[in-house]
């Protein structure tokens, strides 16, 4: 530790002032000389063969520069794991909202007008909207090379499941379903792209993985990744939905063809129709327990709705299949999962990455089990909780695990014991827990980890170069804190270089709750390297043994108290090295393992845990639900910035509340989205979200930067089942499919009353 001690301080976001004063430049703010605007013709049909596209009338609109169709795209398809997508539809459209043509014009209005004049002749095909029906023999196929519409599958077996069920005291079997929900970030997806006369493409866009995205974009455009440079402006949120989004590549396709800057910004309804919403998953979950409530065996069957194309959903289904098994110490597990194509928007990553879906199922069922065998729902969780030092059935090793402490803190601060089961008929309290990863080795075969550079310039300013993107969550602030701490340097003098793929090193980007753990570790190592280099150079110049030098508050301090400013050191070094800055390099590789063919292997270097308690009030006349209190406790190893960490949890809980109670993308029978706007797709306002109490359990993860683990995704996961469980505590009805609407509650209450009346009659 140095004198600065900036770790653990409540430091406002490094970019807060830029943002609140409206000066921060987002992608949609960018305007370039000679810039053209694109507007997309989207399919009205959910499944059809394209017979003919007539662009003649649209071309005649004054101001239209070009109209691109599938014929302008490479014949090879692109994707992240499964290559099934094309920038513009070729031969077939597979969901209503799919990109069919791109009009480029001198302004947006002209482009939109021309879009309306394109005539497409389609031959309609049978549509499949339900994944279970899509798997049946004879169902209409979306992709001819995927029989039964199965895009991906998971099969896992550990221990002796059948024997464990045989020896179980009780076995529970339930079905659960999660809904299709949208990330609903404030800034819709957009991009500006340009191409120079040598065919080098530059994209300015809010992308969660700006460096990594070049691989998929290169494939989509039929060029090599070196031809693509991505510059990330400020970003208005992503929550998983802006992992290599398709739109910037489509924008680049036009810029590449026309050699002019082109801008496309999606409307909110386009965002809903063709974004990458959460993968809805249906579960059949069978769990066997001992008399004491110890979980002996778990068998799960999952069907995930992939939508029309595979973005990250295969990795999401894999995550959904087995990450939850790290929450409790379960020795016997069998899991089967299918990811199935349907004629709907391609689904993909949304905060939690499949883990949230499965937690809703398991954390609901654990509650049902606790009530049935008469154990406090908090206690059954503590009894089964993963302990530090444990290696689970999938080979995951938990160096630190503060789940028990999270449960204890969350229940104590919410008055759990006094409230549980006391407000029947109206008020209720419920708990949900979670485990997650801090980066995931399984996502990328090549490597996991991160790299960074930290440099000292001639003015004594420290600049951090990392390709791990700040998408609004605060990575820049965390990186600046880490660099400042390591160098004993004032926070205000640390700058974070904006992500520009031509100057930062390779980085997978922001997903899998990676930024602080792997990105922060890399910045720490780079800062350590710079510190060493500064001391080496200063020792050499001052002719003092470097062990007698200290680096603190922008100064080198000698043992006898002489000070030498970093600005001067930076300047001198630069002059001595013909312009070269003192630069520290660092990288971090977690001690995780790429899973083997049976998915065995420790996928992450550190596992964060959490517990949320929700309190609700249910109106039994209307079924209305009000969440009246939320308590969130997370084991994040060490809190680098409590202000930012609390914000993550508050935001996660609000988003999870929306998922639990309000949000749902609904399709009609023709596969058209019925609610592609915020009027009909409702996210919670501040009036729907109660005050919350957030706190942390610090387990000091040895592999984390200053002991830190991940938080971004865990923040949303436990609250959704906690709310479902609180509703059960309040009125004794259990809703197993999201969202939990007043209508479902009222129906269940009436059925329950009817059942009771029937029983009394008998």
């Amino acid at each position, binding site marked *: 530790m140095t004198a600065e001690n900036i770790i653990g301080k409540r430091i406002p976001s490094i970019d807060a002032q830029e943002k609140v004063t409206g000066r921060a430049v987002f992608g949609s703010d960018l305007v370039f000389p000679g810039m053209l605007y694109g507007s997309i013709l989207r399919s009205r049909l959910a499944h059809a063969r394209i017979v003919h596209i007539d662009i003649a009338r649209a071309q005649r609109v004054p101001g239209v520069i070009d109209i691109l169709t599938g014929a302008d795209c490479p014949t090879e398809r692109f994707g992240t794991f499964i290559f099934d997508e094309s920038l513009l539809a070729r031969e077939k459209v597979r969901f209503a909202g799919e990109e069919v043509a791109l009009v480029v014009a001198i302004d947006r209005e002209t482009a939109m*007008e021309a879009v309306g004049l394109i005539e497409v002749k389609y031959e309609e095909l049978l549509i499949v909207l339900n994944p279970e029906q899509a798997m049946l023999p004879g169902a209409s196929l979306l992709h001819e090379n995927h029989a039964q519409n199965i895009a991906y599958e998971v099969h896992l077996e550990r221990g002796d499941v059948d024997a464990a069920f045989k020896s179980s005291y009780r076995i529970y079997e339930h079905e659960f379903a999660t809904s299709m929900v949208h990330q609903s970030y404030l800034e819709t997806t957009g991009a500006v792209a340009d191409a120079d006369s040598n065919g080098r493409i530059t994209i300015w866009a809010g992308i969660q993985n700006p460096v990594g995205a070049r691989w998929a974009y290169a494939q989509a455009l039929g060029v090599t990744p070196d031809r693509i440079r991505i510059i990330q402006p400020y970003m208005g949120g992503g929550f998983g939905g802006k992992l290599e989004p398709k739109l910037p590549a489509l924008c680049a396709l036009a810029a590449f063809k026309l050699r002019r800057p082109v801008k496309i910004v999606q409307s909110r309804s386009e965002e809903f129709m063709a974004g990458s919403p959460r993968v809805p998953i249906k579960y059949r979950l069978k769990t066997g327990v001992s008399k004491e409530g110890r979980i002996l065996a778990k068998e799960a069957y999952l069907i995930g709705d992939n939508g029309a194309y595979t973005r990250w959903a295969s990795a999401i289904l894999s995550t959904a299949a087995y990450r939850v098994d790290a929450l409790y110490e379960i020795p016997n597990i069998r899991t089967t999962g299918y990811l199935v194509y349907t004629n709907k928007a391609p689904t993909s990553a949304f905060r939690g990455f499949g883990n949230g879906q499965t937690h809703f199922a398991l954390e609901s069922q654990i509650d049902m089990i606790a009530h049935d065998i008469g154990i406090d729902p908090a206690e059954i969780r503590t009894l089964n909780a993963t302990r530090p030092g444990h290696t689970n059935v999938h080979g995951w090793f938990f160096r630190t695990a503060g789940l028990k402490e999270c449960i204890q803190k969350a229940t104590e601060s919410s008055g759990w014991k006094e409230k549980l089961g006391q407000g029947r008929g109206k008020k209720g309290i419920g708990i949900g827990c979670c485990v997650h990863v801090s980066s995931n080795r399984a996502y990328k075969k090549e490597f996991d980890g991160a790299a960074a550079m930290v440099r000292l310039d001639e003015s004594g300013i420290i600049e951090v170069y990392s390709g791990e993107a700040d998408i609004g969550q605060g990575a820049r602030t965390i990186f600046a804190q880490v660099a400042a701490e390591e160098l004993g340097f004032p926070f205000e003098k640390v700058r974070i270089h904006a992500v520009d793929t031509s100057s930062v090193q390779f980085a997978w980007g922001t997903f899998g709750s990676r930024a602080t753990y792997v990105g922060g570790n890399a910045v720490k190592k780079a800062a350590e390297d710079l510190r060493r280099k500064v001391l080496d150079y200063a020792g050499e110049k001052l002719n003092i043994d470097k062990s007698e030098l200290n680096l603190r508050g922008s100064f080198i301090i000698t043992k006898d108290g002489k000070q030498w400013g970093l600005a001067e050191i930076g300047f001198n070094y630069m002059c001595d090295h013909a312009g070269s800055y003192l630069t520290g390099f660092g990288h971090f590789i977690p001690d995780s393992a790429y899973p083997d063919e049976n998915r065995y292997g420790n996928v992450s270097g550190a596992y964060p845990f959490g517990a949320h308690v929700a309190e609700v009030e249910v109106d039994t006349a209307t079924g*209305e639900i009000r969440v009246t209190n939320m308590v969130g406790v997370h084991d994040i190893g060490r809190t680098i910035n409590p202000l930012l960490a609390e914000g993550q949890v508050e935001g996660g809980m609000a988003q999870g509340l929306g998922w639990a109670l309000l949000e749902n993308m609904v399709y009609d029978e023709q596969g058209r989205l019925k609610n592609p*706007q915020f009027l*009909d797709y409702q996210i919670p306002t501040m009036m729907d979200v109660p005050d919350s109490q957030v706190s942390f359990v610090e387990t000091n993860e040895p592999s984390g930067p200053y002991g830190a683990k991940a938080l971004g995704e865990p923040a949303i996961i436990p609250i959704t089942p906690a709310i479902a469980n609180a509703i059960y505590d309040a009125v004794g009805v259990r809703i197993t499919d999201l969202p939990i609407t007043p209508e479902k509650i009222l129906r269940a209450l009436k059925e329950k009353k009817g059942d009771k009346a029937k029983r009394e009659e008998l």
Partner: protein
Amino acid sequence: MKSFSYLEPAALQEALELLKNNKGKIKVLAGGTDFLVQYKEGRYNPDMVMSLRGFSALQGITIGLAEIRVGAMTTIAQVEQSEVITRYLPALGLAAGMIGSVQVRNRATIGGNLCNAAPSADTAPILIAYGAKATIVGQTGARVIALENFFKGPGQTALLPDELLTEVTIPIPPGNSATSYLKKSRRQTMDIATVGVAVHVWVSPEINRIDNARIVLGAVGPYPFRARQAEGLLLHNLPGSELFKQAAQRAGEEARPINDVRASAWYRREVVQVLTEWALDDVFMERLGIKLRN
């Protein structure tokens, strides 16, 4: 999105002439909170858009001997905050405050809310309950109709293509009356009604017999309408919880809801019953201070 000509007449007469000379081609713009969204979504492609913001004659709330007049261009925020409304028509002020967001209420107008004719419009049920009348002006002069006859279907009103709604007139309710508007929506604020119920009742002094009753249902039919059978059950009876239950049940039966993304028809009927009963409890017990019989 198609371009249109924008018209901003300086006086009512000019606006009416423009309407007459361009019959059916003009979309009238009040606050724009509904129109602009629908235009951007491509639901309207008018040749001409005529704003009524150019003249102030249609704005403001005035009180007469027996009635209150609200100009069609009066904003929802003005209705919500008006002292006259708060004093004489409190349930209208509360209903106005349930519309959209602060920003929307600052722009949206009462005339716009009515002419947009959404089945869920929050000011419509309560105005009908208060017995409001609509003043409609055309080239040939003005006509006045009961607001309950103003709505013809979703987005459809009694206005002819060359007419404008200029004013809403609401009789000042007698002292022995009370009103209530209850709304249920999916979230607490910034949402349109899943169900809205307005109730207005008069009682005989001292004996508390129900002399008149209006129950108006919103968002459960093609337009807001009166549950006349439920009203009939109340009439000439003494207020009592059993009576209210019966009336509420009848109102539920009279509702003509549809299934949509907000709720099913079944749920809407259930909520009509609940809100009708609550609104009756509210007007008699809370507002008139009458103790109910069983």
